[in-house]
């Protein structure tokens, strides 16, 4: 039984008053999620009791730190069903995962005349690294269009995937339209023309079960801070033969096996891609976040968010002048982006803030998608493990209030 009130007790910040007498209603988890106490404690515990550098000391603390740093990797591998632990690379965030692949794989494998396919749904993190790569190599970026309901124009894939396509990189769940894309179908389509497939799971991993083997993707990236973990760490998953043949990304200590004045031999996976003293506390925190989400069960998390999102969709649909971006039903993740006629998203967010309700306003790092939708900005309410139906009622009431502030009929 999913007990949202008990879950709320796990998140200390949900007891915060953002202004005197105004409790927090946090509807911005898609930007960054809040942290359960177990995650905060796990990081404190590391700093208070066993902080030391990893992979080099022979002393007790270094051994403990190394054990916990690597234990977290094992938890993450299980969480996404990676065949081997070494396929889980610690990076700074999903953005760094894309940069790593663009730099290390892209520079070795993309040439003049090659094509990289993206979609119109993408976050800047899955656009800009490829723009830089394409510019440098004389390659071409193409974008699979969306339909007006925010779903991908799958039937047009054949036009966009050609023998020139070397990589298809796409989101599994849009941070604006909420669209959940058919990952396996898209991966298979990429493979059918000999291209690799990379998945942006930043908005998927926090909310739904992820199985990289079932997806058959070649690379997949996500961020810790959107899934109850700390900021500053993310994960890149890759197929082993690709990771092994890729040159290093960052270089320095820890990523080498041997260095002479003349050159170096890179370390084994996964450390080949982890130069310098790594994010130890963050890995420990992410491990605790994985434990927390696993204890709730990702199917249960998804089911809860579906119920909340359906409820919100219905409640918001009744507000005069509202335009909800993206699809209905099973193709939508736990967020709703919208506009209100006569009220700019910034003004909506400001008025809601005074009622303690935190939402995001702007283009959510997806300017091309907003241009495609003919919008300069949207307001976005996003939901998570602790979101209640009462909070949705508060959101709805506050939106009606915002309209009255602007004297909208």
């Amino acid at each position, binding site marked *: 039984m999913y007990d949202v009130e008990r879950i709320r007790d796990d998140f200390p910040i949900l007891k915060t008053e953002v202004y005197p007498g105004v409790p927090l209603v946090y509807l911005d988890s898609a930007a960054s999620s809040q942290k359960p106490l177990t995650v905060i404690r796990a990081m404190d515990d590391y700093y208070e009791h066993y902080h030391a550098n990893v992979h080099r000391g022979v002393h007790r603390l270094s051994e403990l730190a190394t054990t916990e740093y690597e234990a977290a990797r094992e938890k993450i591998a299980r969480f996404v069903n990676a065949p081997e632990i070494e396929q889980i690379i610690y990076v700074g965030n999903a953005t760094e995962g894309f940069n790593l692949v663009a730099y290390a794989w892209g520079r070795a494998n993309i040439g003049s005349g090659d094509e990289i396919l993206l979609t119109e749904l993408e976050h800047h993190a899955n656009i800009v690294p490829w723009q830089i790569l394409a510019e440098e190599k004389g390659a071409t970026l193409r974008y699979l269009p969306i339909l007006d309901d925010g779903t991908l124009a799958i039937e047009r894939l054949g036009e966009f995937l050609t023998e020139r396509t070397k990589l298809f990189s796409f989101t599994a769940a849009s941070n604006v339209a909420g669209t959940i894309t058919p990952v396996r179908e898209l991966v298979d389509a990429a493979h059918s023309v000999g291209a690799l497939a990379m998945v942006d799971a930043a908005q998927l991993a926090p909310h739904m079960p992820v199985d990289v083997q079932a997806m058959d993707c070649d690379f997949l990236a996500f961020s810790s801070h959107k899934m109850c973990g700390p900021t500053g760490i993310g994960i890149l998953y890759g197929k082993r033969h690709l990771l092994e043949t890729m040159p290093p990304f960052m270089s320095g200590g820890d990523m080498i096996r041997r260095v002479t004045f003349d050159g170096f031999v890179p370390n084994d996976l996964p450390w080949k891609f982890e130069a310098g003293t790594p994010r130890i506390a963050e890995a420990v925190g992410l491990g605790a976040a994985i434990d927390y989400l696993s204890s709730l069960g990702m199917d249960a998390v998804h089911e809860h968010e579906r119920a909340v999102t359906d409820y919100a969709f219905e409640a918001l649909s009744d507000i005069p002048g509202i335009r909800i971006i993206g699809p209905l039903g099973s193709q939508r993740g736990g967020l709703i982006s919208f506009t209100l006629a006569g009220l700019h998203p*910034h003004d909506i967010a400001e008025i809601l803030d*005074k*009622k303690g309700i935190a939402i995001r306003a702007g283009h959510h790092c997806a300017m091309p998608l907003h241009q495609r939708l003919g919008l300069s900005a949207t307001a976005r309410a996003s939901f998570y493990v602790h979101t209640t139906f009462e909070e949705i009622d508060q959101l709805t009431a506050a939106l009606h209030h915002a309209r009255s502030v602007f004297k909208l009929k």
Partner: protein
Amino acid sequence: MDANIYREQIIDLYENPLNYGEIENPDFTYEEDNPLCGDVIRIDVRLDDQNRVAEVAWRGDGCAISQASASLLTEEIKVKTLDEVKAFPSEKLLELIGVPLSMARVKCALLSLKVLKAGAYGIPDPGTMRTHE
């Protein structure tokens, strides 16, 4: 708690902006957006033979604060000299807006002034208006 930054005048200006439009042969024109939130403003200015603002017009898209600010600013700089425009203090514009703003919203409020000064200093115009309906 009241959303008291939305005093009557701000909402009036948002709905009925002043000096909204464009000038055919401006002496300078400039446009910039606030990349964080997508507010965008273009300001056109025509000067008279004494280098005073003879005509000013603006157009744009964005939140009530950014758009009301452009109305207040363009109203305020009429007949001011180019040097006075260049020296226009941001505190003065915040005073005209007259409501308490958070750090994030100060950027919205000052976008119009940033655009105006960039134009006044002759910085090349970076682009064409992103149009929105």
